């Protein structure tokens, strides 16, 4: 190698050598260690949360898939192009077909409208059918489907037709033997009261019934299941080729009962993950700033020895890159181990069988770790480039003013990217970010005021407190930063705590042990009292019954409503069916007016409508629209006065369309109620059906159990991930406090040399950190209250009940944990001869 080239290499390798040497030294002692620790913890948290969220999300997706009976389905009013089935197989996906339509079922001289579903082998691709031998009898899961020539009927159909298993029914031109009572259909869905009872048959039997003609109203479904990636790929392909009248449905759009629980859970988990990155970022930024400050003198020296600013930039950039890689890998290992420990700990509690973790979180963890370092640590470090060599001489400049508002645009971008990656609602991610920034500003302002105020206080307090106060007031920027860092950390932990508490209690409230598991429909007005008495006989408290009148929507703003006006199959179905109209003076519990106004109590009944918002959206109705319903041949005309959101996940009786009381008094109403029956009292229903043959009993027990178990999974997941984030957050807060501890140690040693007792030194450290912690806690609690309120109502759809104790706990916890961290950090100095500590620095 020619000599000149070698020396050239030396020069170009110079910064890297110095960079690596500095890195090695500083990792053993100094801010880099704090930075590395913060990063390892954060990446660990992110990957652990990632691993567990990933697994939990997979488990929940499976749960949701059961509600579709598939991972993805294509619904159409026309037969589905067979090429899709072939393509699906080519993608390695499993398929099944269903065909549903409405028809009359006949037995002897009795007729009953039924929803027929004809299914192919393989159905359901996810979840299980459950069957029984008698209506409302003990059910057991099965993998089979009705064989050709046989049908399975829902229990209430058997009671309505006076049928028993083994007898025959007519459907169109064909005759079938009833072989099972259908107890649970995984994809029965949410519209419980609005579909006629179910008949399940083999798809090969559809032709002999001659019921399905080219113009018949039927829904064809192609069910698909397989690997998440294959499903996602196929879904994209399908989405671009969608014909009018075709609709895709994924697990994200499963039953309305669970949709909200699942989406809240996944939003919360995402929030927790992004939070751990935010906290880590703050700790890293703090440590990097101190690192830069401490190296300002050495950089000035290097500059005076002739190093270019590029050289300096390379030295520090290299350190950041290597550190990011090492800490990222260590963090991933920690995250994996932490996840393993946690899922072991929770093994008995969690979700029976967690699917194995995917490797995706490793990639995200590494990228996030590097990204955190680049966006939070690089700005202050690169600022070192600009240091002038004069600083070697001039002590007054010697204090390096690291940038406080360094360009952290990268940080915001990183968080946004992570939010996107985690599938956070943009509103959630942006409000967390905005809330954090607002709190940051508030923290900075109040911290500055505090620091100012403290300066006056200094001469009036004892030596230990003076020392603590002096430390706070000395470098206002540092103290302000530390308060801001502590505060942001506490803010996010508090937000997570606040929301978690309410999320859990709202979920728990949704499925109380006595949630209704049966509905009684078609109770005649004169039977209301008798039914209540009948139930009271068995020691059941008499349920409230709601009136209901059937009506069909005829016109919207003068336009006749017809199925052909809509391409959406759901809209077609809704447009042509009977609605259950109910009335009430008050807004029913669990409902919320989202637009317009609920009617005030009026003397004279005036027709008006309150419409469920999803229905309004599907049928394109707005507040102020004029509707005409046909009720028993008579038109009822009125305006839409309000749109309501309905807690579909409440399993209470809910109505799409409601009117003020009095309007429908003259029409024949039937009554509806829900009740809770423990398993041991199911036979009550048999007696009830015999005593009141006209009453329809709807059994949602199995569905409720399913929903309950999914929500329980969600609760566990939230608990579990919250705990991890909390631990990680506390760890990072501790690291943030540690960032300034080296200096505290020297100070403690000097105080000791001057004869200060152990208690005095501890009190000094304590007073400083307690002051920082108190202020941070105070502002963080304020910020967290506002942010959680907003998030709760805008994203989580919760009415947040803040526990004032939680707030107080936040403030005191902030002070206590900061003080404790300070004490733990200085403790080691107290028992040592001061010279040992002084020389160590």
């Amino acid at each position: 190698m020619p000599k000149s080239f070698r020396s050239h290499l030396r020069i170009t390798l110079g910064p890297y050598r110095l960079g690596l040497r500095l890195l090695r030294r500083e990792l053993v002692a100094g801010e880099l260690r704090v930075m590395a620790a913060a990063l390892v913890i954060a990446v660990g948290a992110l990957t652990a949360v990632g691993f567990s969220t990933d697994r939990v999300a997979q488990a929940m997706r499976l749960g949701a898939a059961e509600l579709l009976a598939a991972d993805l389905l294509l619904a159409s009013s026309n037969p589905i192009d067979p090429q899709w089935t072939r393509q699906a197989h080519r993608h390695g996906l499993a398929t099944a077909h269903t065909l549903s339509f409405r028809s009359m079922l006949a037995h002897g001289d009795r007729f009953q409208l039924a929803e027929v579903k004809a299914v192919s082998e393989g159905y359901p691709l996810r979840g299980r059918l459950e069957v029984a031998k008698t209506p409302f009898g003990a059910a057991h899961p099965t993998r089979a489907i009705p064989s050709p020539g046989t049908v399975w009927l829902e229990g209430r159909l058997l009671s309505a037709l006076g049928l028993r298993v083994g007898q025959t029914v007519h459907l169109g031109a064909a005759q079938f033997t009833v072989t099972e009572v259908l107890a649970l259909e995984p994809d029965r869905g949410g519209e419980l009261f609005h579909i006629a009872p179910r008949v399940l048959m083999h798809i090969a039997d559809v032709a002999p019934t001659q019921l399905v003609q080219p113009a018949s109203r039927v829904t064809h479904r192609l069910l698909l299941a397989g690997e998440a990636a294959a499903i996602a790929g196929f879904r994209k392909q399908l989405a671009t080729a969608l014909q009018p009248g075709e609709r895709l449905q994924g697990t994200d759009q499963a039953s309305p009962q669970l949709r909200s629980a699942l989406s809240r859970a996944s939003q919360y988990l995402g929030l927790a993950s992004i939070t751990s990155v935010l906290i880590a970022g703050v700790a890293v930024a703090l440590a990097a700033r101190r690192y830069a400050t401490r190296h300002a003198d050495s950089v000035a020296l290097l500059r005076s020895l002739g190093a270019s600013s590029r050289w300096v930039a390379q030295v520090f950039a290299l350190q950041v890159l290597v550190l990011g890689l090492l800490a990222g890998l260590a963090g991933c290992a920690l995250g994996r181990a932490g996840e393993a420990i946690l899922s072991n700990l929770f093994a008995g509690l969690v979700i029976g069988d967690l699917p194995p973790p995917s490797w995706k979180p490793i990639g995200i963890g590494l990228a996030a770790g590097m990204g955190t370092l680049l966006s939070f640590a690089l700005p202050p470090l690169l600022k070192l480039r600009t240091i002038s060599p004069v600083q070697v001489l001039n002590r007054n400049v010697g204090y390096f003013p690291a940038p406080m508002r360094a360009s952290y645009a990268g940080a915001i971008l990183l968080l946004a990217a992570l939010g996107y990656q985690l599938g956070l609602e943009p509103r959630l991610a942006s409000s967390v970010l905005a809330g954090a920034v607002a709190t940051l500003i508030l923290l900075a302002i109040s911290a500055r005021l505090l620091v100012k105020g403290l300066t006056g206080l200094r001469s009036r307090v004892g030596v230990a407190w003076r020392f603590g106060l002096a430390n706070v007031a000395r470098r206002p920027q540092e103290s302000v930063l530390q308060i801001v860092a502590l505060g942001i950390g506490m803010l996010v932990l508090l937000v997570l705590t606040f929301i978690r508490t309410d999320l859990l209690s709202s979920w728990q409230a949704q499925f109380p042990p006595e949630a209704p598991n049966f509905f009684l429909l078609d109770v005649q007005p004169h039977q209301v009292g008798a039914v209540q008495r009948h139930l009271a006989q068995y020691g059941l408290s008499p349920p409230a019954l709601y009136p209901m009148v059937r009506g069909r929507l005829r016109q919207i703003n003068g336009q006749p409503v017809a199925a052909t006006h809509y391409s959406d199959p759901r809209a077609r179905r809704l447009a042509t069916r009977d609605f259950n109209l109910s009335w009430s003076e008050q807004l029913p519990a669990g409902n919320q007016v989202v637009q317009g106004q609920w009617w005030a109590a009026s003397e004279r009944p005036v027709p008006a409508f309150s419409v469920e918002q999803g229905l309004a959206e599907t049928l394109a109705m707005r507040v102020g629209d004029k509707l005409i319903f046909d009720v028993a041949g008579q038109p009822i005309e009125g305006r839409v006065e309000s749109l309501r959101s309905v807690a579909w996940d409440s399993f209470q009786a809910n109505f799409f369309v409601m009117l003020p009381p009095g309007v429908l008094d003259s029409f024949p109403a039937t009554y509806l109620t829900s009740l809770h029956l423990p398993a041991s009292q199911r036979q009550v229903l048999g007696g009830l059906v015999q005593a009141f043959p006209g009453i329809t009993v709807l059994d949602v027990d199995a569905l409720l159990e399913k929903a309950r178990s999914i929500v329980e999974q969600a609760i566990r997941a939230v608990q579990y991930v919250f705990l991890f984030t909390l631990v990680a957050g506390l760890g990072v807060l501790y690291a943030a406090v540690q960032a300034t501890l080296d200096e505290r140690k020297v100070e403690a040693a000097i105080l000791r040399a001057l004869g200060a007792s152990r208690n005095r030194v501890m009190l000094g450290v304590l007073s400083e950190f307690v002051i920082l912690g108190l202020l941070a806690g105070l502002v963080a609690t304020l910020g967290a209250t506002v942010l959680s309120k907003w998030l709760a109502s805008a994203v989580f759809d919760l009415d947040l009940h803040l526990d004032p104790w939680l707030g107080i706990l936040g403030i005191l916890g902030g002070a206590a944990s900061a003080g404790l961290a300070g004490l733990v950090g200085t403790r080691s100095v107290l028992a040592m001869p001061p010279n040992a500590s002084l020389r160590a620095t």
Partner: protein
Amino acid sequence: MVEARGVEKRVPSPEGDLTILSAVELAIFAGETVAVIGASGSGKSTLLGLLAGLDLPTKGIVRLDGHDLTAIDEDGRAALRGQLVGFVFQSFQLLPSLTAIENVMLPLELAGNAQPKRRAEAILERVGLQHRRRHYPRQLSGGEQQRVAIARAFATQPKVLFADEPTGNLDQQTGGAIAELLFELNRERGTTLVLVTHDPCLADPCNRVVRLDNGRLTS
């Protein structure tokens, strides 16, 4: 007043244990002034730290005003230091978070002095820094910081004052003034002085000069 018996100090180092001091025998009487001299690295600062109870010997005992420093715990030694000892560090060791006057007040406050401020101001004036009293250490020059460190050591009028090169950073005139201050204290209050110095201004007036040579006393 200060007594070292068979003192040895070793520290671990990458090349095995390093003996900094060995077999040091030294007795300093109350009111005596002693100068410690020796080449750089000969162990002067180490010895001073041991005598003041800032560090512990690996062998032997150190007595301060009759108390065996090796027999009491760190808190006990801290209390003794607070009562008896003033120390001027070679590297000053001012608290960066406190102003000059606050640094000087610190030992007074720790000792429960009723009027720490007045006393601190008086001493700062004597070292010629009253106009810089509100400045932080990093805003002061090396010599100014050294004077603050000296003022701090004086503040409590200790029985024994240890000073590690107290005039090392000072010009001759200021150095002379500091030397005067030290010996005045010795004359007026009988303060025992133990000084590490290369400065004849300081060494000459001392009652006794001891020399350290590679960790051994060769007075």
